[in-house]
């Protein structure tokens, strides 16, 4: 009898847990929910596979490629694509395919890392401005006005001039120059949520401020931000390659795609293959980022679905 009761209790408990877990999975905006949505979208899944495959290939490339990304061979100078070198060779006879694969990790991770920095700075600034309001808000917003009084790419160029060239510095430069956009969005989002009725309702039943922020404001204010982050990675990747192309980003011997194009542009008249392939890879990567970003947006905001 007693044993049965224990068993019964255990059963009810486990079903309750199941319900809770299920509710969590189905909650719009939660990670499992987004993931389910992406899985149903073949384009986004394909893109995700391409991104992950390129990333893994990039780390494996020294072991699987026939030619090293830095091996100079004057015999193969300017070689057109052939069976030995699938995408041809550059001005000092380095295999372009090896360089592209090896360089994938730079171009791809700059997008991720700089967006993470932008979002982190932006979310904190925007949340502080939006939540406290008053003079704190005024100060932060005027500060952002100044930063946004000229185009993002120029801001990134100026910051990377001060920091000097290099992989980590490009990430920092792009991260800082992208932050104001996220800050504005976070602030606007928090202001909308703060004025809404359910916050008033929560206050009226005596919720603590900490609970209101944690349970009501953040979950409701964060989804436009996740959308922007998901779509910002592609834009940051494009900016990174542009910076390298202009000579302010990752520097020449490193086969970052933008800097490969920067040196290849001098040979465009006679050896266009050097220019074409790195660009195609940038395009494929950014396209994949865009498609995954769109899928995440669709999952979070069905109104915007195209």
């Amino acid at each position: 009898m007693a044993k049965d009761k224990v068993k019964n209790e255990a059963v009810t408990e486990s079903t309750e847990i199941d319900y809770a877990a299920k509710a969590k999975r189905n909650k719009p905006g939660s990670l499992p929910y987004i993931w389910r949505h992406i899985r149903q979208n073949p384009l986004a899944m394909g893109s995700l596979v391409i991104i992950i495959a390129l990333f893994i290939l990039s780390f494996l490339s020294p072991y699987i490629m026939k030619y090293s990304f830095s091996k100079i061979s004057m015999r193969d100078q300017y070689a057109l694509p052939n069976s030995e070198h699938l995408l041809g060779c550059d001005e000092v006879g380095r295999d372009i395919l090896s360089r592209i694969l090896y360089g994938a990790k730079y171009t791809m991770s700059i997008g991720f890392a700089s967006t993470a920095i932008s979002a982190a700075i932006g979310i904190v600034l925007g949340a502080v401005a939006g939540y406290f309001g008053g003079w704190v808000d005024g100060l932060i917003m005027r500060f952002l006005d100044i930063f946004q009084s000229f185009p993002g790419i120029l801001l990134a160029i100026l910051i990377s001039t001060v920091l000097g060239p290099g992989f980590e510095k490009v990430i920092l430069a792009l991260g800082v120059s992208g932050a104001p956009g996220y800050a504005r969005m976070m602030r606007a989002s928090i202001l909308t949520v703060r004025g809404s009725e359910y916050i008033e309702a929560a206050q009226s039943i005596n919720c603590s401020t900490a609970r209101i922020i944690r349970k009501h404001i953040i979950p409701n204010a964060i989804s436009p931000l996740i959308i922007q982050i998901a779509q910002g990675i592609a834009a940051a990747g494009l900016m990174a390659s542009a910076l390298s192309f202009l000579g302010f980003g990752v520097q020449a011997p490193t086969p970052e795609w933008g800097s490969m194009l920067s040196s290849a542009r001098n040979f465009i008249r006679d050896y266009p293959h050097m220019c074409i392939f790195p660009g195609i890879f940038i395009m494929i990567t950014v396209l994949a980022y865009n498609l995954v970003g769109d899928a995440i947006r669709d999952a979070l905001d069905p109104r915007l679905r195209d």
Partner: protein
Amino acid sequence: MGRYILKRLIQMIPILLIVAILIFLLMSFVPGDPVQIILGDQATEMQIEEARHNLGLDKPFVQRLVDYLVGILHLDFGKSYLLGTPVSQELLTRFPRTLLIALLCIVFTVIFGIPIGIRCALRADKLEDRVWMFVTLLLSSMPGFWLALMLVLLFSVRLGWLPSNGIGGWKYFVLPVFANSLGSLAGIARQTRASMLEVIRSDFVTTARSKGLSERDITWKHALPNAMIPIITILGARFGMLLGGTTITESVFSIPGIGLYMINGINNRDYPIVQGCVIYIAFTFSIMMLITDLIYAFVDPRIKAQYAGPAKAKKKAEATA
């Protein structure tokens, strides 16, 4: 309205001054000594000291900053370290080229991007829509400088139709404008489509349709004005991107505009040039933002009412009461 514009213009002055101070500070942190770059590695200590004195670089930092700011108020941006020529004069000859390209780009973006977006929204999920969506997605995933290189490859190197660099007649502008604005055009088309679709599915459009209005009237008089409001905001930001993009385009096509001037200034550690360019760009961008806000008011009567000023609004409220 006039008072509002004046107020905004006055607000711009402190922002531009702070931009000037910040860029001056920023440039003083840049590694690399301009004097060393001008004189090369062979210079003696004495020569370097002399050059520093001639350029005024031996003065205390605060005094240089104050001198610079006073100069700006007289529209004097100092002299180039390397060439000794006044920066303001060079900016005046170069700026119109950059502005012209940026304006052509935004016009091109608007007159093609918005109609494509509307057409796609009206034919949502049909074949034509899908083709355009694919093309625009592809275009917005392309780096602008690579597109520029590919256009040069096709139209200058292979076909020989258009010049690949420099400035001159209208032919010289075709490729730079295309390369710089195709990405924006694609973005605007996609956003117009999304915005239009949202409006088309809203209740007031259903109401208009149920009243028996023609589809043409619904599209042009009801849906479009409402769909345009978010697009205008985005266009303001796009102008900034295009202005920034001209830096890259100018560098690919060797167009002697402000962007290329700035890049060369950075590479030569020629700070007065960099500072002058930044202030010019910040000024242009701020003016463009103001124009965006004014167009906004023109399209959206709700916002226009806000600009009318509190006095007028009060009077109106009293009148209705």
